[in-house]
């Protein structure tokens, strides 16, 4: 039995009579060429495929790959992944104890966050900046997860940074909130908050360069905070001071 393209388009469109439609369906089960023709002719498939291929975005995959069971085996296929591979290799060679799957020492939290943040480029933030409504929902989710308020006024305190998005992540078994900013010149920054106490006295900030990024960290006895971004420790110290006043 042969079918014209018009027959098959009518079948796809539901315009063919019931008997003829049933016949095509039956034939397709045994005739792979006919099945392929029908699929090729489907007028809805191509636009749907073209649109849906944009899902999921790179940042979703980045987050997934970060914790998926194939991470160590992944071939470096982009600049970001090459950098990550280099960082991991360096860690192993130096015997630093920073292992992707292993549980690192508690004080490594700053290094791990800085390492993650080092994958960010200006484009990462620009492409993932949330709308005002989404940002509000992300903040609500962060507050629920963390169990402490996060006032928008406080998060907006540094005038040179624009709030871009909020992500709920995890650090071992603890929640980790990543609040992503973009500086006026495009540089990505992030304020990360997790539970627990760090080394040193509460509210005393300490700064250091980690994975090529400036970091300033502090804790308040209940939560640990770290601001990561740029290469200027004085800058992160000043920005952290502004954020600390409201947090």
């Amino acid at each position, binding site marked *: 039995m042969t079918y014209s393209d018009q027959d098959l388009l009518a079948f796809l469109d539901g315009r063919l009579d019931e008997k003829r439609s049933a016949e095509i369906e039956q034939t397709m089960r045994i005739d792979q060429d006919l099945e392929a023709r029908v*699929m090729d002719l489907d007028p809805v498939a191509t636009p749907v495929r073209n649109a849906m291929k944009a899902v999921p975005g790179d940042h979703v995959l980045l987050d997934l790959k970060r914790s998926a069971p194939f991470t160590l085996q992944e071939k470096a296929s982009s600049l970001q992944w090459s950098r990550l591979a280099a960082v991991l290799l360096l860690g192993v060679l130096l015997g630093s104890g920073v292992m992707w799957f292993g549980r690192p020492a508690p004080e490594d939290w700053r290094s791990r966050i800085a390492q993650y943040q080092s994958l960010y480029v200006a484009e990462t933030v620009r492409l993932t900046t949330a709308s005002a409504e989404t940002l509000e929902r992300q903040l609500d989710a962060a507050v629920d997860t963390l169990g402490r308020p996060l006032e928008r006024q406080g998060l907006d305190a540094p005038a040179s940074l624009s709030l871009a998005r909020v992500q709920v992540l995890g650090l071992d078994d603890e929640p980790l909130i990543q609040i992503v900013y973009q500086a006026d010149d495009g540089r990505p920054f992030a304020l990360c908050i997790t539970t627990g106490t760090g080394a040193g006295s509460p509210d005393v900030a300490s700064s250091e360069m980690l994975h090529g990024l400036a970091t300033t960290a502090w804790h308040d006895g209940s939560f640990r905070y770290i601001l990561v971004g740029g290469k200027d420790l004085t800058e992160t110290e000043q920005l952290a001071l502004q954020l600390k006043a409201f947090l």
Partner: protein
Amino acid sequence: MKPKEVRDLLPNALPSIWRFGLSLTGDVDMTNDLAQSTCLRAVEKADQFRFSGSFEGWCLQICRSIWLNELRSRATRQDKVFATIDADLIPDIAPGVEHNLFAKEIIERVMALPDAQRSAVELVFVQEFTYSEAATILDVPIGTIMSRLHAARKALKKFTQTPSFDQRKEKR
């Protein structure tokens, strides 16, 4: 197949797994968990993979199986229509389409389909599995796939595009 071979193949399969997971759950957070569980299970079951089907198809079968177990554990009916994804979240999951209103509208409409139709659309329209492969992955008769796609086509009819002969030749 050895676990290492599965781990090597998973990064390329991850977008398909995630998108199929989203078609099942309609929820981004649940999809992230489902994709993670699928990858873990695939590595654990590496020795059960046979080369009769595609690796991605095998992963999607695992994904669906995990999701069904999750539904059973929640004592939720399999055919329940789950919450559809919030349109505002689309720039979050597909930032590239923010300024492409046509693509954004298509994603919104696909995500608003009942979950059974959405899964069929994902497998056949997007991932280009044949009707019979999609039927195997979803463990339903091929006729069910056809009827789900037929219903989905009606809902998506406004996005109809007749492919040219050349496009059709290129695609397969």
